[in-house]
């Protein structure tokens, strides 16, 4: 068995048009009219010549039956082609959309990051010491990102194989509970610090009062 899969959407679309035209031609009235004419002629000739034509009805019936089957099969072929084209077009659109999305994310990530240059290696040549082109870290990042895209595209293909009700349902990202709790706690801590820090910001009246209390505590009045 040959497992090399291939889908040529452009050719399939052209074939769909051909099959639809064929289907229309089969379903128009001319074929049915021709068969009805043959039946009518044979009935007339039989009337004039003492029922000399026998068993033709069976042949005509089988002709009509085969034509009906042909119409059904052509119609089914058109429907199947249409469905196949639609499904594969959706998959292509999906892949293209996600590729664009991932590439945009990649671009913005690269723009926001600091591009560190690795020290330039120095090589010796016949003409003397020559510097090599600086090695940029961006291509390395791009390579990693490209691997990510490839993985995502694979995920899209797998996603397209999923049952329809599960398709296109991407679960919302949820922060792990422990991390959330830690963050909340740390925020509380920061607020308490902030509150303590704000003790210094007191009104002049209270500052005066505080000063008195502090002075009493150190017996400053006595000293005075």
């Amino acid at each position, binding site marked *: *068995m040959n497992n090399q899969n291939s*889908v040529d959407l452009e050719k399939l679309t052209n074939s769909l048009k051909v099959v639809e035209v064929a289907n229309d031609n089969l379903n128009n009235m001319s074929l049915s009219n021709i068969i009805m004419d043959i039946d009518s002629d044979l009935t007339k000739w039989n009337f004039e010549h003492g029922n000399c034509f026998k068993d033709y009805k069976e042949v005509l019936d089988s002709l009509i039956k085969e034509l009906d089957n042909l119409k059904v099969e052509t119609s089914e072929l058109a429907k199947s082609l249409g469905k196949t084209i639609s499904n594969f077009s959706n998959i292509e659109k999906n892949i293209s959309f996600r590729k664009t999305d991932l590439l945009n994310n990649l671009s913005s990530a690269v723009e926001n990051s600091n591009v560190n240059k690795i020290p330039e290696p120095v090589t010796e040549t016949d003409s003397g010491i020559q510097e090599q082109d600086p090695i940029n870290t961006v291509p390395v990042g791009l390579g990693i990102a490209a691997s990510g895209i490839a993985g995502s595209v694979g995920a899209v293909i797998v996603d397209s194989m999923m049952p329809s009700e599960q398709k296109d349902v991407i679960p919302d990202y949820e922060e792990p509970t422990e991390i959330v709790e830690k963050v909340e706690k740390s925020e509380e801590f920061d607020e308490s610090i902030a509150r303590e820090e704000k003790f210094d910001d007191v009104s002049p009246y209270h500052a005066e009062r505080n000063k008195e209390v502090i002075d009493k505590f150190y017996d400053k009045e006595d000293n005075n």
Partner: protein
Amino acid sequence: MAEVDWITWKTDPKELIDKEKIESNLNNKTTEINSIMDNLSNSLKLEVEKGGLNKESLHINGETPGNEVANKILNKIEVIKNINTKLNNKIMDQANKQKQVEKEQLITAIEEKVIEQEKILENTKALRDRLTANNGLISSNEVESIIHTTEEKITMLKERLERAKAI
């Protein structure tokens, strides 16, 4: 004894079964059907050979559904054309047999009519002989007229018989 009306009807060549007309009629219908079938077949064959209905255009896990259905349709078109040819052959075969039957019936009927008229002639001549002998009631001119008319009828019937044999 053959009916005179029947002979008159059958001696008109247009009233006999016209197998050439039937053949032409059926051929026209076959041409129309084959034209529709051939158009369908040719366009599908092109798609099967080079287009989206060939094996490579839709090949999933060893299956080529489009190609398979298209080939099935192409076979069905050939089946329909064959049925139509079979119908034509059957009708023409029966038309040939019917023509032969009608020709034989016509010859037999005319031959019987000739015999009938010859008997009338013979009887009338016998009557003339008796009238001559008895100086009878009807004139000899009237008898001569009957004999002349009957002889003419026999001559015409024999001409028809020759024409019927030539059909």
